[in-house]
Every structure is written in structure tokens, then in C-alpha cells.
């Protein structure tokens, strides 16, 4: 008979329990309540969302479609008001009473808010859910934030906001950071790395009071009298199991909801999993034991035997550039010995704590490549007496075991844990591969390995490589070029998170293998740097392709083409006369009308460029940027000025758009068009960004192309006013500049991040739109200028030969 199962809380533990239940085709009628107005997402990935490395859709683990498909009744945004265990019913917030056969608690935890005076002021938040993350993301560059708590969560919050340009101060009550996971030396290295990221760190600091103004947080006052001004205050000092509902229902509760080894509470029909439980006196905050609990709870519900056993845990910090690992117990004590290795030049620190020839604890900072190996030694209580002398150097230095990572993986036993979050062993991955999962995605969907925090992705790929041999090529996440193994995405992340503001800084920090890059990476780096640091970074002409260095298109015979800008495709008799005069004066062999409504003068000699530009400048024309990975043209039709079908002033809007966007550099060329009615004479629907005017406003669509690939644009928004068109397009352009890979047109970028994501960022989220527009304007304060005029006045000489020896008499 179908049993009614009610689950309270859609978090990572109950989400995993659901998956186990569904996998075994259990006969349950499931109703899922969640106080958050959404389903299950990967909460541990909120930090990468905060730092901008991931987006919410990427961390959503169960979509609405998934719940529907599996016949789960979802009641998101609803709390449970009461539970009657005698009648076996729950009462929803709206008064509805639902019967259950089994009840599963997954109420999670509440962030602990220190009851300082002022803790209830507006702008004092915890770091717990998507709303908190969004608050932090919305703060905006240049604002100030204080984070109370120098533990895992507090530091991830601090680093994420610092990566977004927020001025962050971390206040920690203990003498060093992450004291529960790190010793003092590693805490110091971590602190140094954070300070290098521009974060202020105050340790051994006691908070006294939160000061406010007009009900909003203004500053944090320390007990030594220091005032730390802030616009947002984040408390990340720990969590408390959320036991209120369980307590009211009369379940046995201590620090958390008491459960036995089968995850059953003091009521045989009520189970609990996750951060809300207490098991043998312990409560849980890391994901690995929660997944174990979920598995046991599902088995118990299915009437199968299973037992939850607490295991050794390890910790990694998800902050780019701070590689740290800690596991076990590393306090000093009787009979304990240390092996320490330091390499100050590389910022590497490793410490092993050994007792009776067994490693009981390990702390690693700066180079955590061997952390899995050490963790295995701790967990298995391996006797290390024989390798003691070389132990600290890692597996590569143990006799026989070679430095080849594949050999090391091949040597792992079947029960070696590969994915710590999900407790997946090598053997399970091998079985999945044997059953037909032959790539990373398949292994991930079958076993969940590498599906949570993702740090073991490389290891899973190596297991695939070892198991499949030549049939599997480890997808060398294609490096930018031969100078680096890092991908474009990696490098962009490094530039942002490490505040790399010059090319040598990138080469150093990312370990470039060449002295100064090559023709592939340098133009990309130059773009990334100027897009991310418009005010600090100085554009490097020597890292640009010739077209952008000389602001003209090189032709096959080494001559150039010159295209003056015609705003929105509109010109005048005077401009046409000046163009004709220039063509005559410089003996331009070909004059052609372009597809973007401009006039192209082809065949101009390199040394004549400054002179022809000067003539065109004098007639009031500027560079048309027909050569740039940047704003090219805004093509228009005549709209309401002349056309009997026109619905809006498409020409006027095109000119406004071009005047606001011109000069901006983008990952690839950017072409726009504005059509005055859906007849679309300006061909707006095959442009990177197109606007089609309709009676009620303006339809903005993006991602068109008419080159090697032909694409129709996709509608992103319809807006009522010209001003809003301009803002949305500026925001799209800026988001494209900040996020796309160099040489990806908008349609390729859209293929990677999705139209919905772009719409969220630039249309729906008004604050984010405004922030993007503001950043675009900051950049345009530098780049909205005519490069021709600058070269005529400052660089004219460089277009001439260095010397002319052709006139010297032959000897």
C-alpha cells in the first residue's frame, strides 16, 4: 500500500534521501515542504555564486521539472505550523491538515546571530541562503562590509565580496583564522593571502555593539573602541540545529534532534537527517556525513538495514588562490610528533601530526595536491614507520610509487574514496564505467562523484583514464595557448579574484610557460585586463592585432582600409564631399559601401593613415572602428521620419545607441541594428543585438549572426521607452564584456551561459542592471574617444619609416 511521506525542508540531505528513495522505486506518496520559496540547491556552492564563478542555475540540483517528473507534491515557501504525532498529521501554515505515515525532518540549521546590541538593524545578515548571497552580491563595488567570523563560511563570504570590489573587513574573536581547522602557521599564510586580496583582517577582536543610523547598520564597534564603518554586516559565526518544530512536537531534543544509527528519532515514524540532528553527541555541518545520513534514512524508510557511522572529516576552503586542506586532529599533545615542511618562496606549508606511527592530523597550505593521499593514510590509520623520512614530500617520493598521477590513481584500492562529499569510492566509479558511463558527465550522473563541490573532478577523470585506457582522453580543458594550461575562464577568474592588473602579474600568478606570451594569449589578456580594470590597466598596443593597433584593417597587400563613422548610417553632403576629397588626395583605389551602412576607403598606404585621418577629423568624422573587437555599427532604417510603416524613431534611437556605445572594446565584434517596424528593413534579427520597434515599445533581441554561422536573434526583453532600451543594451554589453571568452560572439557566449541567465542579469534584476550600466560608464569614461585623433596628435611619427636608406649612394 502506498505510504504517505511528508518531508520538512528541501535541503541537501533530504534532497539526497529523495533521490535514494526514487532510485529504488519506493511506493511513497511524497509531499515536500520548504520554508525557502524554492527547491533543493547545492548550498555549499553559494560561495562560488557569491564570487561570480558560478550562477544560481548551475547550483540548482533539483528543478521544478524534476519534482514534477517524480510526482513529488511541492509546497515551497510554506512552513509547518504544528505536528500531531498521535493523530499522525501535520498542519500547514495555511491551516490545512495532512496525514502522514512517515515524517522526515530536514529542518537544517539556523545561523547563530550574536545578540549584540544592534543585531536587529537593517543591513545585518547571516550567510546561509540564496537571499543572503543575493544581498551580498547586490552590495556593489566600493561599498564597505564587515564580516564577523573568521571560519570557513565567513572567509568565503569575505573573499566573494572582495572579488566583487567590496571593501571587506573580517573580525575574528580568536587569535588566528579558522582555528578549528588550521594551526597558527597555516592561519598566518591564509591571513596573508586574504590581505593580499585587499581584505582587512582583525584577529583577537571582540565585537561590542552594532551601531546604526535611521534603523540601518552604520558601523561595528569593537571593545577596544575601534569603529569599523560598514554598509552591510555579515555574521558568520556558526550554526545551530533548527529544532524548534521538533521540540514543539515533543521529540527528544538536545543540541539537535536525537537520532539513532538508523536516523530514527524518539518517535519510530519520524526520521531526521542533516544539520538538524544530533547523533552520539555530535552535530554536523559538512556535507559528506549528511549524504551518509540521507542514504541511511532512505534505507530505513524502505525497511532495509543500514547504519550511520561517523567518519573522519576533511576540510577544503573554496577561495580561489587559497589552497588549504585540513583533516584529523592536529593539536599538540603527549606522545605526538610533528613533521613540518615549509617553502616560503612558494608559500607552501605542510604539517603532519603523528602518534604511534600513525598520522592523526594534517594541515596543508599552498600545495594541496597530495591531500587525498594523506587523508587516506589518516582514515586507514596506515603505519607510516617505513616511509617516515620522506613522508612529508608526498606519494611521489615513496619508493616505487611514481610521480605520474595516473599510476598513483591506478594503484589506489577499490575502496579508496574519490569523492569526499558523496562518499564515492574508486570501485563504485569503476563499476559505473563498466556499466557504460564512459565520460565525466555520465559518471557524475550515475554515481554523483564530483557533483557537489567539484574539487575531485580531475581525480574522477583520472579514474576514467585508468579504467578505459586509450578509449578515454582526459579532456585537457583546453588551455588558452601553448603558454599556459589554464583556460580562458580560469584566467578571467584569476584576474578578478587575485586583482591581477598587469600582464606580467597574470604571467606570474598563472605560471605562464613563456617569457611574454604569444600572439594568441596576449590579445585575450589585454582585453580581459582592460575590461576588468578600466581605470587601472593601460591598454597595450603591442598586444593587439595590427588592425586594432593601427585602427585600420590590413589588406592582403599590406595597405589598409579606412572607414569613418556614420552615426546610425546617417551622413551629410559635407561629409560625403570630405570623403571624396580624401579619396582623391590619397589616391584611394577602391571606394565601397559596406554592409553596415558605411563607406570604406580601401588601399590606403600605412604611412598615409595619420594624414587621411586628420582630413576626416577636420570634417567632423571619427573612427568607424570597422577593424575592432568592439562596437562596430548600429544599422538603422528610416523609421517614423519618412516611412509610412514606421512605429518609432528607429534612426534617432540607433544614433543614440551608437553615440553611447562607440569606442567600447568587447570580446568579439559587436554589431547592432534598429528596425522601425517588424518588416525589419535594418535586418536587426541577425545582429549581435537587435531592436525591433513596435507600437507599444521596443523588442530587444540578442545572439544573431550572419557570418560562417547564421543565427536568428532570441528575444530578451520588450521595454516601453528609448531610455530603457539604452540601459538594457548597455547592461548586456557590459555583462558580455565581463563574462564572455575572448573571440566569442554573443551567440556563442549565450550558448554557454543561457539566455535566461543573461536576462536575469540584465533585464529582470534591476539593481544588477544598474550596476552593469554604472561599470560600463566607468569604462566608457576612458574608451569613448576617437583613437584616430589621438594617433594623429601623439603617434603620427610611428607610422613613418624609421630611416630611409634608399636615397643613399651605392658604394
Amino acid at each position, binding site marked *: 500500500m502506498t505510504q504517505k511521506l511528508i518531508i520538512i525542508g528541501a535541503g541537501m540531505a533530504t534532497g539526497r534521501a529523495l533521490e535514494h528513495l526514487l532510485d529504488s522505486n519506493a511506493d511513497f506518496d511524497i509531499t515536500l515542504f520548504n520554508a525557502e520559496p524554492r527547491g533543493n540547491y547545492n548550498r555549499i556552492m553559494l560561495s562560488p555564486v557569491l564570487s561570480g564563478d558560478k550562477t544560481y542555475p548551475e547550483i540548482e540540483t533539483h528543478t521544478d521539472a524534476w519534482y514534477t517528473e517524480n510526482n513529488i507534491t511541492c509546497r515551497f515557501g510554506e512552513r509547518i505550523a504544528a505536528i500531531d504525532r498521535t493523530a499522525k498529521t501535520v498542519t500547514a501554515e495555511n491551516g490545512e491538515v495532512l496525514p502522514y505515515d512517515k515524517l522526515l525532518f530536514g529542518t537544517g540549521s539556523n545561523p547563530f546571530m550574536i545578540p549584540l546590541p544592534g543585531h536587529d538593524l537593517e543591513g545585518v545578515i547571516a550567510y546561509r541562503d540564496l537571499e543572503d548571497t543575493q544581498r551580498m552580491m547586490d552590495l556593489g563595488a566600493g561599498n564597505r562590509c564587515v564580516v564577523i567570523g573568521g571560519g570557513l563560511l565567513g572567509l568565503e563570504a569575505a573573499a566573494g565580496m572582495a572579488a566583487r570590489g567590496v571593501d571587506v573587513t573580517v573580525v575574528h574573536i580568536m587569535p588566528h583564522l579558522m582555528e578549528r581547522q588550521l594551526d597558527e602557521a597555516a592561519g598566518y599564510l591564509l591571513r596573508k593571502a586574504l590581505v593580499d586580496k585587499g581584505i582587512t583582517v582583525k584577529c583577537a577582536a571582540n565585537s561590542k555593539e552594532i551601531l546604526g543610523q535611521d534603523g540601518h547598520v552604520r558601523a561595528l564597534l569593537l571593545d577596544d573602541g575601534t569603529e569599523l564603518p560598514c554598509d552591510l554586516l555579515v555574521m558568520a559565526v556558526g550554526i545551530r540545529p533548527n529544532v524548534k518544530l521538533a521540540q514543539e512536537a515533543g521529540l527528544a531534543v538536545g543540541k539537535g534532534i536525537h537520532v539513532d544509527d538508523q536516523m530514527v528519532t524518539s518517535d519510530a515514524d519520524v526520521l531526521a537527517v542533516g544539520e538538524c540532528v544530533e547523533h552520539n553527541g555530535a552535530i554536523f555541518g559538512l556535507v559528506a556525513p549528511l549524504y551518509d545520513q540521507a542514504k541511511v534514512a532512505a534505507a530505513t524508510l524502505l525497511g532495509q538495514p543500514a547504519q550511520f557511522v561517523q567518519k573522519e572529516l576533511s576540510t577544503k576552503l573554496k577561495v580561489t588562490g587559497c589552497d588549504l586542506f585540513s583533516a584529523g586532529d592536529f593539536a599538540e599533545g603527549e606522545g605526538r610528533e610533528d613533521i613540518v615542511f615549509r617553502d616560503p618562496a612558494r608559500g607552501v606549508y605542510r604539517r603532519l601530526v603523528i602518534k604511534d606511527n600513525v598520522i592523526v592530523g594534517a594541515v596543508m597550505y599552498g600545495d594541496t595536491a597530495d591531500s587525498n593521499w594523506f587523508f587516506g593514510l589518516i582514515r586507514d590509520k596506515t603505519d607510516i614507520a617505513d616511509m617516515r623520512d620522506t613522508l612529508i614530500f608526498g606519494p611521489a617520493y615513496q619508493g616505487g610509487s611514481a610521480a605520474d598521477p595516473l599510476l598513483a590513481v591506478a594503484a589506489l584500492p577499490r575502496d579508496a574514496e574519490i569523492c569526499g562529499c558523496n562518499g564515492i569510492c574508486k570501485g563504485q566509479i569503476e563499476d559505473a564505467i563498466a556499466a557504460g558511463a564512459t565520460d565525466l558527465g555520465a559518471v557524475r550522473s550515475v554515481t554523483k562523484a564530483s557533483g557537489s563541490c567539484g574539487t575531485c573532478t580531475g581525480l574522477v577523470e583520472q579514474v576514467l583514464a585508468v579504467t578505459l585506457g586509450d578509449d578515454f582522453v582526459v579532456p585537457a580543458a583546453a588551455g588558452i595557448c601553448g603558454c599556459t594550461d589554464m583556460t580562458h575562464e580560469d584566467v578571467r577568474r584569476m584576474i578578478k579574484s587575485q586583482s591581477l592588473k598587469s600582464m606580467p602579474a597574470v604571467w606570474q600568478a598563472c605560471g605562464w610557460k*613563456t*617569457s*611574454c*606570451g*604569444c*600572439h594568441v594569449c*596576449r*590579445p585575450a589578456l589585454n582585453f580581459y585586463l582592460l575590461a576588468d580594470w578600466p581605470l587601472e590597466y593601460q591598454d597595450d*598596443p*603591442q*598586444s*593587439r*592585432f*595590427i588592425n586594432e*593597433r*593601427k585602427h585600420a584593417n*590590413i589588406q*592582403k597587400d*599590406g595597405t589598409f582600409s579606412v572607414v569613418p563613422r556614420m552615426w546610425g548610417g546617417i551622413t551629410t553632403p559635407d561629409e560625403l564631399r570630405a570623403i571624396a576629397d580624401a579619396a582623391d588626395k590619397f589616391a584611394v583605389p577602391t571606394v565601397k559601401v559596406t554592409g553596415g551602412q558605411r563607406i570604406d576607403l580601401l588601399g590606403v598606404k*600605412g604611412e598615409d593613415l595619420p594624414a587621411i585621418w586628420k582630413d576626416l577629423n577636420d570634417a567632423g568624422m571619427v573612427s568607424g572602428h570597422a577593424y575592432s573587437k568592439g562596437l562596430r555599427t548600429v544599422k538603422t532604417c528610416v523609421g517614423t521620419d519618412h516611412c509610412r510603416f514606421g512605429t518609432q524613431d528607429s534612426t534617432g534611437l540607433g544614433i543614440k545607441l551608437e553615440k553611447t556605445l562607440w569606442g567600447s572594446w568587447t570580446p568579439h565584434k559587436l554589431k547592432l541594428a534598429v528596425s522601425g517596424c517588424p518588416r525589419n528593413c535594418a535586418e536587426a534579427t541577425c545582429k549581435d543585438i537587435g531592436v525591433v520597434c513596435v507600437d507599444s515599445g521596443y523588442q530587444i533581441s540578442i545572439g544573431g549572426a550572419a557570418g560562417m554561422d547564421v543565427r536568428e536573434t532570441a528575444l530578451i526583453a520588450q521595454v516601453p521607452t528609448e531610455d530603457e532600451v539604452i540601459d538594457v543594451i548597455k547592461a548586456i554589453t557590459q555583462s558580455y564584456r565581463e563574462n564572455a571568452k575572448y573571440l566569442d560572439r554573443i551567440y556563442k557566449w549565450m550558448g554557454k551561459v543561457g539566455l535566461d541567465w543573461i536576462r536575469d542579469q540584465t533585464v529582470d534584476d534591476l539593481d544588477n542592471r544598474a550596476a552593469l550600466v554604472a561599470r560600463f560608464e566607468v569604462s566608457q569614461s576612458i574608451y569613448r574617444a576617437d583613437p584616430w585623433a589621438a594617433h594623429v596628435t601623439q603617434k603620427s*611619427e*610611428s607610422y613613418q*619609416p*624609421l*630611416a*630611409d*636608406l*634608399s636615397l*643613399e649612394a*651605392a*658604394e
Partner: protein
Amino acid sequence: MSHWIDIAALDSIPQRGARLVKTRHGCVAVFRTGTDEVYALDNACPHKNGPLAEGIVHGSAVTCPLHNWVISLETGQVQGADEGQVATYPARIESGRVLLDAARLQHRAVA
């Protein structure tokens, strides 16, 4: 016999860049690397005569702006899978000035 002639100040060539010297038999590109070495090569890629002076200079090589052939500034040899050779000429720096060997430039006309 060498006959060094003064061409220009080193600073008139941008780092990782090049300038042209006109001769009676075509243009010679004078390159300056990121570490301030100078090299002189014919300004024509062996592939389709691309103007090497307009290329991106990296290490001691230049990438032709037309089709990305990479040419060693030291030897004039085309690098990688492509094949070919560009003529090179002696060049050096003395007291911040770039000098070329006129005798060799002259010889070029004869060759």
C-alpha cells in the same frame, strides 16, 4: 667588412614592436623585443609576403599579421609546422642607438 650605420634611437621602436627601414631593394623591419634585443629582417613573410613589422612580437619571434606564421627573429626560420626562411641582417645597440650593417644591407641587393 662591416659598416655600421646609426639608424635611430632604440626608444623610437616600441618594446615588442618594430619599425621599418626603407632601402632601395624593399623594406627591412627592425624589431625590438621585450628584453631590448634588436633584430633586422626582410619585411616579408615567406608565405604571402605579409608585413612582419606589423606582427605581434613575443619572446624572440614575430607572428605574421596575415596568417599567423611564426618567424624566429634570431634565425629568420619559420617555426612550427610551416616552412620557410626570411633573410636576416646584423643589428646591434650602442649607447641607446640602433645600428645596422650597411655592408650587409648592400650585399642583399647583389644576392
